[in-house]
């Protein structure tokens, strides 16, 4: 296993360099730079050009990339062009809130999707199955910002049960349990939106995977041996249908920290997705590159994790 692991790590490093180079080229290919995101009559073009030079934006692309990579190797992610804030600090401050939002949504999505997927696979073509599948289609088709706005309208404006946006009540200075409760309240709606869209997608995969497993010969054997339906599901079918689910989990890991832009913007959640989009509009290359890099690392880690889990879950899989 170890040689395989090392091989993957080395491969990963090469991929990271390639990906970051591509991302850099593409970012700089977009028209305009950080000094062209505004027109201020008090700041003449000569000042803007001087500022560009100070940021190194007048150098050829490959020189700028080399400089970025060189700094990265020494552990320096650079400074935001827009605010001067150290990128590591900026991106770091978004990790927590993103992980809380995406992590909570992920766990609930997984639980909900597996439960419903198994339940509908066990009762195929029943009213329950049609209802859930119908709801799933709706969840996939309705854009998340619409779902978000609708939930805000109903639960925050009309009923007043939940807050509209933000991480917590900024004016109040809660601490301890009160702060936890306040933050939990603010988490409900954004997570609900993510779960509704995410579970909708996942439940159909689970349903088809479990359904497929239930049609296998070993299930028929178990049933004919007198094993109860429940045990058949749990003990035999579910385990074997988990393989596709593991793939999806592997893919979900990068999403955990990449965030969900629409949800973050609508709920003004200080997440990674919103930061990435804002930095792209502001042509803030250091920030965009750092987030890109983080995403790439997570994709590689996620796929490695998924492959490891396969080896655990499926005795047929061997790595050398």
């Amino acid at each position, binding site marked *: 296993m170890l040689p395989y692991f090392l091989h993957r790590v080395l491969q990963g490093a090469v991929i990271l360099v390639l990906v970051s180079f591509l991302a850099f080229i593409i970012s700089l290919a977009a028209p305009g730079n950080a000094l062209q995101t505004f027109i201020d009559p008090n700041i003449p073009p000569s000042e803007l050009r001087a500022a560009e030079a100070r940021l190194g934006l007048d150098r050829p692309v490959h020189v700028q990339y080399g400089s970025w990579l060189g700094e990265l190797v020494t552990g320096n992610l650079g400074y935001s062009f827009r605010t*001067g804030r150290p990128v590591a600090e900026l991106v770091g401050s978004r990790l927590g809130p993103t992980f809380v939002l995406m992590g909570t949504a992920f766990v609930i999505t997984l639980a909900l999707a597996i439960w419903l997927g198994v339940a509908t696979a066990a009762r195929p073509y029943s009213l329950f199955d049609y209802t859930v599948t119908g709801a799933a289609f709706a969840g996939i088709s309705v854009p998340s910002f619409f779902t978000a706005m609708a939930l805000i309208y109903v639960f925050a404006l009309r009923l007043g049960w939940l807050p509209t946006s933000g991480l917590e009540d900024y004016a109040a200075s809660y601490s301890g349990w009160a702060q936890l409760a306040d933050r939990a309240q603010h988490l409900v709606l954004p997570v609900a939106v993510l779960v509704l869209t995410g579970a909708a997608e996942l439940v159909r995969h689970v349903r088809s995977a479990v359904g497929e497993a239930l049609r296998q010969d070993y299930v028929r054997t178990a049933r004919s041996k007198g094993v109860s339906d429940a045990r058949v599901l749990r003990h035999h079918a579910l385990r074997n249908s988990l393989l596709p689910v593991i793939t999806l989990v592997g893919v979900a890991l990068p999403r955990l920290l990449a965030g969900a832009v629409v949800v973050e913007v609508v709920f003004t959640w200080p997440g990674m997705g919103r930061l990435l989009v804002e930095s792209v509009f502001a042509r803030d290359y250091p920030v965009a590159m750092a987030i890109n890099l983080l995403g790439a690392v997570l994709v590689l880690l996620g796929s490695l994790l998924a492959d490891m889990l396969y080896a655990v879950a499926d005795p047929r899989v061997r790595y050398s």
Partner: protein
Amino acid sequence: MRANAVKRTAVKRTAVRRTIAAVALAALIAVAGAQAEETRECAATGGTATIAQWSEPGNLNPLIFPTTYDTNIQELVFARLIRPTETLTFEPDMAESWEVSEDARTLTFTLREGLTWHDGEPVTASDVAFTFTSMADPEYPGGRFAEISIIEGAQEYQDGTAESVSGIQVLNDRTISFTTLEPFAPFLPVIGGVYILPEHIYGAVDIAQWQQDETNRRPLGSGPFVFEQFRPGEFIEVSAFEDYWEGRPCLDRLIVRFGDQNTMLAALLSGELDAAPVPIDGAASVESNPDLELHVVDSLSFQYIGTNLRNPILADHAVREAIAMAVNREAMVDGLLQGYGSTLNSIFPTNHWSYPDDVTPITYDVEAASALLEEAGWTLDGEYRSKDGQELALRLFVPTGNQVRERTAPIIQANLRQVGIRVDIQTMDFATLVTHLMPQDAEGTPRSVNVEDFDLFLLGFGIERDPNEYLSYLLSSDSPPNGFNFIGVDTPEVEELMLEGRVTLDQDARAELYQEVGRLMRENLAWIPLYQAQDLYGSSSRLSGFQPDVRGVNPNVANWSVE
């Protein structure tokens, strides 16, 4: 007996003298106290107000490339020598008075007594000198040197041939004078736009690192509020400055949240915010809410269609006039702005003294517009016109970021189709539009504009402090790469008037000069003015004293109170 009387008299005289001294001292203390701090009438003292703005500030150091979202916060934490009134004249802020010299080239300011920074250190004229000198520092990265380049010695200091800026003189702890190269009419607005930095804090940081340094995120000034925290992507918190010269603000804390306009509207409607800007679509919900009040405020900015005068089609005045007359601007105001705004007929905002009230209005007349085009040789060939085999087709570049402006594009396209002009709308983000208006060659070197770069575009402009801000837009020598005249205006009369306006100090004479510019630009129609939108704000009944106006959302902020 005699001896006793003398002694008693002597004692009495000493006592009297002591009493007089004590009373005088008390009076002096009272007077000094009154000078250092005025008291403020508050409807209620204490509490926290939460307001919102639509974008996060980038830099909190006021000398680094400030945008409105930055200055909204900087206004709370910093103070200036003078500040604008509602009519955009200037009133004393940290300076209690100022004098203009005989030759009109020197302004001398006297600071109030007893001013302190948020950390307790006294504010002195050296801090003022430090702030302005920093803007001329060769290593200064903030981009605002051009604003103060008119000060004597500033260019030399910037070039490194002088040790200091000769035109900035600290006369004593409370007095500072500025001398300009020539009498410069907009100098007072320039001074009114610079927030003063404490030398002992900002001077300790290498100026080349001002943007990266912590002070750009943890500002310290002498304004009504003390900076507390900045949570990126979420909010900024400030607290009342106890020793503010105008009296401690009524509020204890003020929280400024940033977020998408619709989300902030929802937060306002649900009671989570005390005040927020309101998008036009949200005006009805705010008005129908009994706990909220809608404030409609005039602004000094307007939207226009810009033209590329290098394009032979647009170089023809008849075509520009036809476009202006074919666009239904009233429909935009009624439909898109829902009445919260007005059309305008020149390039200055209607509510400013530079706007010529007697300017000829641009009439909406589709037939007259068609006639103009016909006369100019553009004959109808199917749906669109053509001349000498060339179709009358123009690209319209529309920057995103202003939803109302984006929605005007299809209206303009439909309106112009009626007179036979084909408009191709291209929407792009702001930075992309800038690369068309101020283009660069393949190596990235700025170059001059050519016919291919753009045809028509939508943009906003206006007055921040003084009409001299339009100068670079109207000088023929300031076409890119030198300045902002991307349209390519080349009207010697207008240039002369703009240059004269810079040095004319008499306000009435100055107004007349800019108004004439306004009339000429109306005739010229290189800029086709569309409308001036009003700004809408909503505030909750919990918040009193909220009075936004042309200056923005913060006027009267020190008097805001919550119940």
